[in-house]
């Protein structure tokens, strides 16, 4: 990877293109994605800037951006794009690449995803209390959203015990196959 931030990595554009199956050359930087993004206020780069970073081969800035982790995957950008680019899918591809390259800037979001997937692998579905505990353990954020717990408990949305699904082996098979492919 280039050391100086202004040195571009032309191969990066192609990698994102392959992984997202989107033609990034179609983007003419109109800004429609940014205009409609509901979480743009929290971004370090706007959506069209993320697209530009990818087009320009600026791998480090794109993969270490906060924006890709704050994206809500609402797909407004995809809906509005005049060139039919699935922008949300590009964001998704960037998250995968950032994880592989160990460049996740929003550690808490990464931790949540990891805890979520661990729970699914273990039980075949999400065990909410276990997910909360794992997330808190990974991030040290003991009290995030704790105020919601009483209501969730009352409505039966937070089981105290984990319920594994019947054919859990098949779910685990998916995880195994994923790991094999990664090797």
């Amino acid at each position, binding site marked *: 990877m280039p050391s100086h931030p202004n040195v571009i990595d032309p191969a990066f554009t192609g990698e994102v293109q392959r992984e997202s199956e989107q033609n990034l050359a179609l983007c003419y930087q109109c800004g429609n994605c940014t*205009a409609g993004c509901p979480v743009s206020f929290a971004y370090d780069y706007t959506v069209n800037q993320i697209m530009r970073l990818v087009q320009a081969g600026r791998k480090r800035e794109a993969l270490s951006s906060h924006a890709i982790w704050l994206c809500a995957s609402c797909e407004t950008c995809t809906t509005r794009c005049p060139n039919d680019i699935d922008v949300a899918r590009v964001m998704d591809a960037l998250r995968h690449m950032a994880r592989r390259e160990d460049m996740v800037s929003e550690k808490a979001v990464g931790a949540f995803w990891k805890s979520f997937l661990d729970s699914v692998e273990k039980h075949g579905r999400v065990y909410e209390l276990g997910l909360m505990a794992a997330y808190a353990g990974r991030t040290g954020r003991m009290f995030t959203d704790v105020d919601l717990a009483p209501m969730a408990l009352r409505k039966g949305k937070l089981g105290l015990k984990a319920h594994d699904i019947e054919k859990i082996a098949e779910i685990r098979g998916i995880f195994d196959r994923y790991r094999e492919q990664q090797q």
Partner: protein
Amino acid sequence: MNIGVFVCHCGSNIAGTVDTEAVAKAALEYREVVFATDAMYACSEPGQAGIVEAIGTYALDGVVVASCTPRMHEATFRRTLERAGLNRYMFEMANIREHVSWVGKDKAANTRKAAELVHMAVEKLRRNERLQAGEFDIAKRVMVIGGGVAGIQAALDCADGGLEVVLVEREPSIGGKMSKLDKTFPTVDCSSCILGPKMVDVAQHPNITLYALSEVDSVDGFVGNFNVTVRRKAAYVDWDACTGCGECAAKCPSKKTPDRFNEFIGLTTAINIPFPQAIPKKASINANACIKLTKGKCGACAKVCPTGAIRFDQKDELVTEKVGAIIAATGYDLFDFTKYGEYGGGRYPDVITAMQYERLLSASGPTEGHIRRPSDGAEPRDIVFIQCVGSRDKSIGRPYCTGFCCMYTAKQTILTKDHMPDSQSYVFYMDIRSPGKNYDEFTRRAMEEYGAKYIRGRVSAIQPKNGRYLVKGADTLLGRQVEIEADLVVLAVGAEAARGAGELAEKLRISYDPYGFFLEGHPKLKPVETNTAGVYLAGSCQGPKDIPSSVAQGGAAAAKALSLLSKDKLASDPQVSGVKLARCIGCGKCESVCPFGAIEMIEFRGMPKASIIETVCQGCGVCTAACPQGAAQLRHFTDNQILAEVNALCL
């Protein structure tokens, strides 16, 4: 027959991947070839001189040139043969560029293929006949379809050049889109002040017949001799009697008729003259809104008309005009602004199109030139303009740039400031396209002198908020989102092909692109011609254009028509069908398949036979394929010639 073969290098275009010398050597082995050589550029002056010289030296009576497509230089080489005293049809062309060198990289294979194509050409040439072109009479009249500024210019130029002109306009008045504009960029001239005199010239020109409220119904015939049937739609008014006084409109009780001319932001009467400068200045009745025509009662207009011109029983009328050339100038339509749900066009009353805004700006418009919101009639202060609404957007099937919206938006911001000095205009744009004389200076002036705030980015949504509109967009130069509260939003709608353009193209037998714009003969070298002889294009029917380009094309199309019809007779192509009477069994199949009506059945010694009308036949060859007896043969492409080519390739 003595045949000469010339194999062209076309620089490295052909010689780069074909061994032209080897092709020439191979050609010497073909029957009746007495001379063969290769040449650097066969079409160049020395190349042609070489052909002329060889015809004399070797007493050639037929020539094959192996080079590019016949579309490029067949006419060139036929003239070369004529200069050397040969019949122009004793020539064949083998296309070894488009069909060989440009499509294959293997030099050995290319060389073999080129030699085989030359062999086919030689075998066909051996069976060629010396054909002579005939002559036919032509109508020195032109039909111009569409009375916008392009059609008006074409009609006036043809008429001034001495041709009789029939101008057909679909709307009740000529003037087209330009007549709806308030001012024009980049000079801020009053649009109707500069167009008006031209419209009057059309009305007064002795050589121009104007059919307004009329459409082309059908087109027969061919270059020099078109028969066009025009449907003159019922106006329910006798236009010979109507003086355009306007008494009828003043008394018409149906006062809530949607106003087409004012882009439906105002109301008009069921009987009306669309605008004060209308040509012809005649009243017509909107049958859907007229109380008499819908409910049977009323007739107020008939009572007040001083010349008794109202005709409630008027019907469409068909008239047929014989013309030698046709100029299509049918213009464009505006993109349907309701297609972007996020802008609220059609749902929010104060989100309007740029053309509607023109009508608000115009002194002859529904607000007499005072800018008023359609919803409450209030004067707006903050106005947002959004560019590229229906342009450069693949997702809605409009990938092209309309090309003039950047300019008219800049003009509208300038006019807005002129009308309302306290107003503020905002323009959301992607790129500013202003490549014309004084165009970029004009857009800069909108920003520098008139204070229009240009924001580089798109708008994602427009939401009503306390009687105003919250416009949510992006400023990509800042990398921020931006929100503007606006009183009025103007959408710079792009151009699309005129309603019914495809159907008209099919009647005229011309091509059109996937968006419905008519196809020119060549994108660079034949911009106003079509691939149908005698049919020309002017203005936005060929692609979106601004006023100066449309006027220029109107003049160019007129020059083409004048040049075509400057002759008294046109040469007929002898490559037409002929019927061998001895073989014809009179079955009539050819007559029924001929798309041009060029075959008539005659009686010959008591037997029915087919006969070709040579001036009507276009040489398409459909009769040849349909004839069960092989009696109908296309000259220069007979069955025997085609079989000889196939044999040369396969045997």
